[in-house]
């Protein structure tokens, strides 16, 4: 292995680390390692999950109380659409990969054969220049060589069209690029809304609810635009209910 880090991150140091562990540990003979986390780590992981679950429940109830449930429903219903978009991207890139691999499967043998035959003929010509070929053999060699030269354009043409197929298979980049861009915009929008939400309800300030309103909130939503920003008491209650 070249004595520097490879483009994919692998390095002689990493190899040495692997080797040192493999040669000192006896994996699994003791039967102790069942693939589970060590006991103390599992305990705190469980605690974390429980805590997150509790907080999520509290957040959910709070949001419902504030009338955000309908806004969130709309966001959630957008997710299957997002899933479709991701599937679309996966499908396009997989198809492109298949097309490219198919093209190389066709072109590689053509290349190999061309190279092989040229090599064989070349060796025979070398014999001729070494004076080791009879006149008969030379006539035959000349004929075979001429045949070969006539066939080359057809073979290189076949390879060219496979190369072209590989170029054409790259068209997925334009389509997937557009889809990714759309998804990024959607994600940024949600992120902005969440940030507004957090800022509004942060302990620091009672900033007016800029950007807080769901853009298409139904008129019946409890939090209407004319209402004042949440009172100190509401914020306190909210924070208390969130366990802060």
């Amino acid at each position, binding site marked *: 292995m070249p004595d520097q880090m490879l483009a994919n991150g692998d390095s002689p140091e990493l190899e040495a680390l*692997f080797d040192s562990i493999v040669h000192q540990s006896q994996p699994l003979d003791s039967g102790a*390692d069942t*693939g589970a986390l060590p006991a103390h780590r599992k305990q705190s992981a469980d605690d974390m999950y429980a805590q997150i679950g509790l907080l999520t429940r509290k957040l959910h109830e709070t949001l419902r109380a504030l009338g955000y449930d309908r806004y969130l429903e709309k966001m959630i219903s957008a997710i299957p659409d997002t899933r479709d978009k991701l599937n679309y991207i996966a499908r396009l890139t997989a198809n492109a990969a298949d097309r490219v*691999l198919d093209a190389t499967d066709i072109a590689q043998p053509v290349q190999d054969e061309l190279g092989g035959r040229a090599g064989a003929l070349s060796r025979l010509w070398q014999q001729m220049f070494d004076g080791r070929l009879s006149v008969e053999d030379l006539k035959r060699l000349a004929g075979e060589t001429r045949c070969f030269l006539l066939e080359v354009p057809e073979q290189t043409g076949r390879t060219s069209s496979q190369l072209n197929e590989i170029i054409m298979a790259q068209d997925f980049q334009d389509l997937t690029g557009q889809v990714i861009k759309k998804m990024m915009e959607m994600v940024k929008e949600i992120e902005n809304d969440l940030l507004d939400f957090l800022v509004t309800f942060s302990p620091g300030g009672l900033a007016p609810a800029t950007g807080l309103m769901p853009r298409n909130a139904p008129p019946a939503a409890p939090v209407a635009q004319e209402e004042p920003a949440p009172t100190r008491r509401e914020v306190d209650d909210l924070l208390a209910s969130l366990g802060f």
Partner: protein
Amino acid sequence: MADNNMRFLVVDDFATMRRIVRNLLKELGFTNVEEAEDGQVALTKLKSQRFDFIISDWNMPNMTGIELLRAVRSEPQLKALPFMMITAEAKRENIIEAAMAGASGYIVKPFTAATLEEKMNKIFQTMQK
């Protein structure tokens, strides 16, 4: 050095990746290659047919590469099988985990046929000791 008729099991949930590994193995002269799309399928195949070498990706649904590795190392008739782990990240903790779980070697993707050959030869050399 190695028998060209060695039976490989390539485990990866991405069909494209399995195809690429198969092509690389072919370049190295190994044409006896089977595939599995996750650890569970791989384990079933390993238990019912004879294999000589396992190349497995790390992140897969149903059963990850590490889980498959541990399962293989705990089966009496499979535990001596050479197992190369493919990992997408050359991070120390990944390498450590693979080594401790009993991997025979690791390889970071993307990789070339030359790298694959190097890593495989390393495993063969260790096996011969």
